[in-house]
């Protein structure tokens, strides 16, 4: 029975070691915000973070996730108010919404390392995430908006620390 650390909680799950993490998260732990799109690493709908890196949970076995910190859309922020989530609402990004958990998790991994990405960096980082509703331009805008907010927040944070 592998032990997983998901969104800060330790959970033991009943699954063979080779079970894709995706199905354990969705069906066993019933955290259904992480989506199944292709099962082949081609769409990004299943994106979660392992130790802060964006990975495709359909291509990650439970065994590979043991001992790492797993974050899903449910754990990205306490109240759904991560700068990206707020920007997603401000830009009215989602249409059907099915791809958007994966989009947000993929974008969050970028912004955690680089809060001032260029448009090309955004495209390169996000190109593996399909959106069949074609919300790409709003996704780009929302990422830029969130990045700006994060930079402003950390700038004011630094000032506060300085005083």
């Amino acid at each position, binding site marked *: 029975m592998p032990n997983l650390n998901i969104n800060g909680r330790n959970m033991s799950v009943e699954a063979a070691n080779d*079970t894709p993490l995706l199905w354990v998260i969705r*069906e066993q732990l019933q955290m259904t915000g992480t989506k199944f799109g292709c099962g082949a690493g081609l769409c990004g709908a299943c994106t979660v973070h392992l130790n802060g890196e964006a990975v495709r949970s359909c291509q990650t076995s439970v065994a590979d996730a043991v001992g790492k910190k797993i974050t899903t859309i449910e754990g990205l922020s306490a109240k759904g108010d991560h700068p990206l989530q707020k920007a997603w609402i401000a830009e009215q*990004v989602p249409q059907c919404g099915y791809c958007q958990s994966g989009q947000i998790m993929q974008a969050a991994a970028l912004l955690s390392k680089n809060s001032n990405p260029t448009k090309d960096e955004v495209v390169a980082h996000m190109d593996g995430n399909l959106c069949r509703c074609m919300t*790409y331009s709003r996704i780009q805008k929302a990422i830029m908006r969130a990045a700006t907010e994060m930079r402003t927040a950390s700038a004011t944070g630094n000032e506060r620390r300085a005083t």
Partner: protein
Amino acid sequence: MNEHVKNVTPETTDLSRRSFLVGTAATGLVLGYAGVPGIDHALAAAPAHFEPSVWYSIAPDGLVTVTCGKADMGQHVASTMAQIVAEELGASWKDMRVQLASNDPKFNDPVLGAQITGGSWSTMMNFDAMSRAGAAGRMALTEAAAATMGVPAGELVVGNSVISHSKSKKSMSFAEVVKSGKATKTFTPDELKAIKLKSPEQYTMIGVSVPQLDIPSKTNGTAKYGIDVMLPGMVYGKVVTPPVRYGATVKSVDDSAAKKVPGFIKAVTLDDKTGTTTGWVVAVANTYANARKAADALKIEYDGGPNAKLSSESLLTEAKRLQGLSDSGQFFVKDGDPNAAFGTAAKVLEAEYTTNINIHAPMEPMNATAEFKGDILHIHTGNQFATRSGAIAAGAAGIDPKYVVMHQMWLGGGFGRRLDADMTVPAVQAAKSVGKPVKVIYSRENDMTMDFSRPLTYQKVKAGMDGDGKLVALSHDVVSAWPTQRWGIPDFLSPSVDKKGPLDAFTVNGADFFYTVPNHYVRAIKNEMAHNATPSGQLRSVAPGWTFWAIESMIDEIAHATGKDPALFRVELLDGKGKNDGGAQRLRNTLLAAMGLAGYGTLKLPKGEGMGVACVSSQERATASWTACVAHVAVAPSGEVKVKKLTVATDVGTQVNPDGIRAQVEGAALWGMSLALFEKATLKDGGIEQTNFDSYTPLRMSQLPEVAVNVIANGEKATGVGEPAVTVVAPAIGNAVFNAVGARVRGLPITAEAVKAAMKA
């Protein structure tokens, strides 16, 4: 399939003859039509919890919950319906909530008499009914408030969920009125019809980009789609689909290896009397991961059936053969006599246009959860056609459709795919077989190879011009599978002009354009071979996605052949004469707007770049949103096409939510581009060859062009926006490619190889 379908529209659906009730139940104010079981029950019994049974209700806390009978697949239609209700009701947007309806006939579309979402019809067909429902609620609340306040109802003003009386400075919130229990009123159909609705200049809500109510839940993982359904005691099914798209049968199933998979329960071979699926087996197990393993371990022998040798090439050859027969097909348009006119024409042009098979591939793979509870079969899935899908599920279960309850979920993409009900069949038969609720989830491979695809189409267009280059004759043959005829519902077919029986207008819509052409034939020819081998469905925009590809390419070809500017040639043809009066002028204006916005004919473009135009009256003549596009492309010597910019203008009459419309139009335009350049499925040995997003490749972020969406709202009736822009983009790109490098490509998708070959030719 038909006998199940016939009895799905019970007699209770004609709402125009029913009274509209506003009454107070234990849970608040409920509003809906009389004689529909739910509302009578809600008002009479007033139980603490009643099933949502009416179009909207107002709770004692003032929250207004609108029940949406339309499938919400990203077009935010639930939110739009709430916005229309809120306008007339006078509710504050922050008090509005939405929920999704079950398949109860009381949620049927007031115009269509069924629960179906498609055709970009929803806003258009529900605007009036939802407006009246909102107004009726406001009147009932106002009268109750007037009685409580002791002032004349006529002096009250309603806004922001508050009813106020300025002279006495008294006011009551909706919540207070509902709590008073006094709001009760019945409207006869005539009274409902007589309600004076707001005129556009009085709108405070319609035309405003209020935030869509479903969006927050789609940023934090809480929106529930069909695939997210969890029922107590539920087990999982993974379908194993045959190598042939349609017509295979299972000869034998060897589950000896599957039995070694832990948690494996059973392999169920479908016995699908509805004919929706053929040769499917479901592996049932305690978890989805185990069901997948078991499915992989099954050894199944098939008889490939009659279509096992067919390929895209054979479907195309058959289409050409059928087109060549003088007596095949039925006439959709028959004006004048093109054949005679060709004889006297100064110039005749002929061309063939094709489109390949296309796959919907919504991001949420098909799925359904079925549970038998007592007499009732419960289906949980996101579906666009609850009325028919419930009947298919009933057919799969061998029960009467009235015992099926469809629980609607948010749709992880629809695009027409979820008009079909195939996913319910394995869920129902597996649940019946194992005696437990079963959730069936298709793999992406199942989803792609078993799609009810956009059919392969073949069109031949012949045009005749007089000595001045005026287009005097056009004959247009459209050969395809017939997606809507497959439903077996006569109401969705149209009579043919030549009285040769009903035809599937969803294969030729758009070909009855608004250009004035005195001699004009359109023939709809069913490709029976394609119809059987690749059961086709409604893919976002359906027929206009191919008819305008042919028409708008041909119009360009004619303009070039007669030395005219293709855009101005269109303007000339849109003269608004006769039956085209009104529509033609709107389309002309839209085209001119797009040309101006794009800098058509004024921007100097470098070598290898070009602009092309197209304009369309999608979806149907009667329900058109006037849409034009200028595509700006750069073509590399290799033939590779890069779209630099799409300028789209669309006349939608009235906008309910401008930002929502822009999102839909942009998404639709990008769908059009994706179909034009990147998406191609092929049939080989009876099966679809593309199985996942590595071989079937919709547009990704790196391929995104600049998209400029311009919405024209001129106060005409609201029209649909989810589809028309899909249809205008492919011909605009094709025409731009020609203007850039002189290469005319007549098949979709436009590939680099095809462009290169046409450049040389």
